[in-house]
């Protein structure tokens, strides 16, 4: 009888121990893009977007100049 109780309490302790471990892992780190940051790939993301926006701005400047010419013609 005593043996059974001590076995059960060992099992319970083990279960609690395992649950605590999983809980600490799940709340410790929210997944973010740490991998991309650590291998420098985040800069690829930034470069792509910077290129897109540079292109958009270049296009706007081109349109602005074109319209300026049209306005002068009048």
């Amino acid at each position, binding site marked *: 009888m005593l043996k059974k109780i001590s076995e059960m309490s060992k099992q319970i302790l083990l279960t609690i121990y395992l649950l605590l471990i999983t809980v600490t892992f799940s709340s410790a*780190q*929210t*997944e*973010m*893009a740490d991998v991309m940051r650590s291998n420098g790939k*985040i800069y690829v*993301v*930034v470069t792509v*977007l*910077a290129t897109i*926006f540079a292109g958009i*701005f270049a296009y*706007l*400047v081109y*349109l*602005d100049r074109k*319209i*300026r010419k*049209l*306005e002068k013609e*009048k």
Partner: protein
Amino acid sequence: MRSWWWKILCFILVGFTVLGGFLMPVPRLDILNETIRNLYFHVPMWFTMILLFAGAFYYSIKYLRTGNLKDDVYALQFTNTGIFFSIIGMLTGMEWAQYTWGAAWSNDPKELGTALSMLIYFAYIILRGGLKDDEKRAKISAVYNIFAFAMLIPLIFVLPRMVDSLHPGNGGNPAFKQYDLDKYMRIVFYPAVAGWFLLGLWIATLKIRLGLVRYRKEME
């Protein structure tokens, strides 16, 4: 409209948004993860739309007072650009919602309010298409634009805050505090709003200038 300084400022601010938006730290929140950075892109679309529609509202009133068709050109182009930004805002919102709220559309009060507002402004364009006479078209659409803008206030600002909502700042959600708008996010968010608005303004002024050139050609 022709000065370069605010356009250069726009370039700097949006450029900073792109760089800081991805490189600067953000709070680590569940469900949102890195998409919290969308705050710097999706939200300024709507702020820009509201400011551009406010410009259209102003010039609509101006037209009714002056009768000068140039003011109608301003009102129309501010509205056109505002509609463009509203479409981008809606699309980016749905893309964001798909992965964070689980569905592209949730019948959330703010989603519905903005969709209704967009429909109202689409109707403005259709209304203009149906009127042939310049002055009549300008007058009627100016009146409609004023009502359309007036409808924005309850649809987007008032009603969503009164009922349950998924959006932060509405339905009992803390405004932006859910994102812990900490100092790192503020550093990028405020310039982002300013930069994107200047971009919207630039696009609108280009369309206005083109409209004015056309108007002057027609007057000859």
